[in-house]
């Protein structure tokens, strides 16, 4: 079978529409993950042992189970509890929650990486607890983890096709429906592959720059 360039040109607009959903889902999901991950990490440092253990096992559970059945759960179960969301909303939420559990580990390691002396110095200055966290610990921890957090943006981008499981019209879904319409799968599927590689390679190059920037400063 021959590669058809004019057909390739025809399907590009469809694919770009799909790519828009992919990018939106990734970015919104990432926002949720970055914030929620920090919440998990901080909750794991609370004095309350029950909270700590509950958070630990909930995040462990979410991290150790696949996103697709999680999407099914949210998509089919939440409505039975009277919570009805659109496909994209469910997709973004679950993508964000799923990856927040990875982010939590990153933040945790970053916080653990802050030298003991910093805590002791803050204590010696008699700083209140919130000030210690906001002014001393978190700025140092977050700075250290930024490159790692960046890597998860690419990871989430690459997991976003899973949203097709619940019918979010993202890039891969649009390629499949284009293919189903014309019975020509080679060009749309290959183009999707190319788009994914191009976007992830470019973003990882940008990330490495960022990493170097933070390593030198």
């Amino acid at each position, binding site marked *: *079978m021959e590669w058809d360039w004019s057909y390739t040109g025809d399907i590009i607009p469809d694919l770009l529409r799909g790519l828009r959903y992919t990018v939106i889902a990734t970015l919104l999901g990432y926002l949720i993950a970055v914030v929620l991950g920090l919440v998990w990490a901080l909750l794991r440092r609370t004095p309350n042992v029950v909270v700590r253990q509950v958070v630990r096992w909930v995040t462990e*559970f979410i*991290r*150790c*189970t*696949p*996103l*697709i*059945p*999680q999407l*099914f*759960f949210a998509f*089919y*179960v939440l409505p*039975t509890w009277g919570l009805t969301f659109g496909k994209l909303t469910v997709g973004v939420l679950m993508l964000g929650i799923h990856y927040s559990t*990875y982010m939590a*580990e*990153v933040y*945790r*390691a*970053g916080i*653990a*990486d802050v030298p003991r002396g910093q805590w002791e110095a803050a204590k010696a200055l008699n700083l209140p607890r919130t000030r210690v966290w906001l002014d001393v610990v978190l700025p140092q921890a977050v700075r*250290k*983890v930024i*490159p*790692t957090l960046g*890597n*998860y*943006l*690419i*990871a*989430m*981008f*690459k*997991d*976003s*096709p*899973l949203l*097709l*499981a619940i019918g979010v019209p993202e890039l*891969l879904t649009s*390629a*499949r429906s284009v*293919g189903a319409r014309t019975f*020509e*799968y*080679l060009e749309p*599927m*290959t183009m*999707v*592959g190319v788009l*994914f*590689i191009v976007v*992830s*390679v470019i973003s*990882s190059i940008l990330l490495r720059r960022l990493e170097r920037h933070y390593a030198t400063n």
Partner: protein
Amino acid sequence: MSEVLDGYEQWLKGAWLTLQLTVYGSGVALVLALVFGLAGTSRHAWIRVLNRVYVEFFRGTATLVLLFWFFYALPLVGIRLNSTMFAAVLALGLNIGAYGAEVVRGSIKAVPRAQYEATIALNFTPLQRMRRVLLPQGFALMLPPFGNLLIELMKGTAIVSLVGLTDLTTVSKNLQSSTGETVASFSLVLVIYFVIAQILQLFVRFAEARVDRMLGRRPSREPELGTLAAGAPGAGVAS
């Protein structure tokens, strides 16, 4: 709930497929990780290029996209992977293998240079240096990120439910539609995945403890930033 549990034969079959995919996939991934990871430590630039091309390409690809491409596009250019299962194992193995290759390369590079120098002083050949000293010591560094990758691969197997294989995820979907027990079906499937993940982690911890004992190291439980980054899909190893 009981109706969902009555489908236990289906659950078992689904779990068996998920496990098979995990085992075969990690076998393929391990081989690729070792081959291309070691290529990344080569003295010859052109062998290192092989490593870079493989790693960048397959780390940049989403597994599901790769699988769909195998499934829909490859037959059209005359290559037919003779089973969907094989295509899935290949897609998972190629993808996780790319992360694994980075782990292998980073771990070998992280073995102290003094160890390498000692092997020269004892006149080991390059192959003996790798096989007797660098690889065994690097292996200890590889295990924790390999553990993370194993869990990632196990989770990744759920994509086969989107190309018509009957794994755990497919079973949960089937039982949900046949019994109408939405909460039970999807809760149970998540719990089963969780249990599988915990068992896999136990294996890895056991292996880590053994290797730590072999190297006379004190095991460190909490992962550090470096290993986290290594295990992260989409992340390189800090080398």
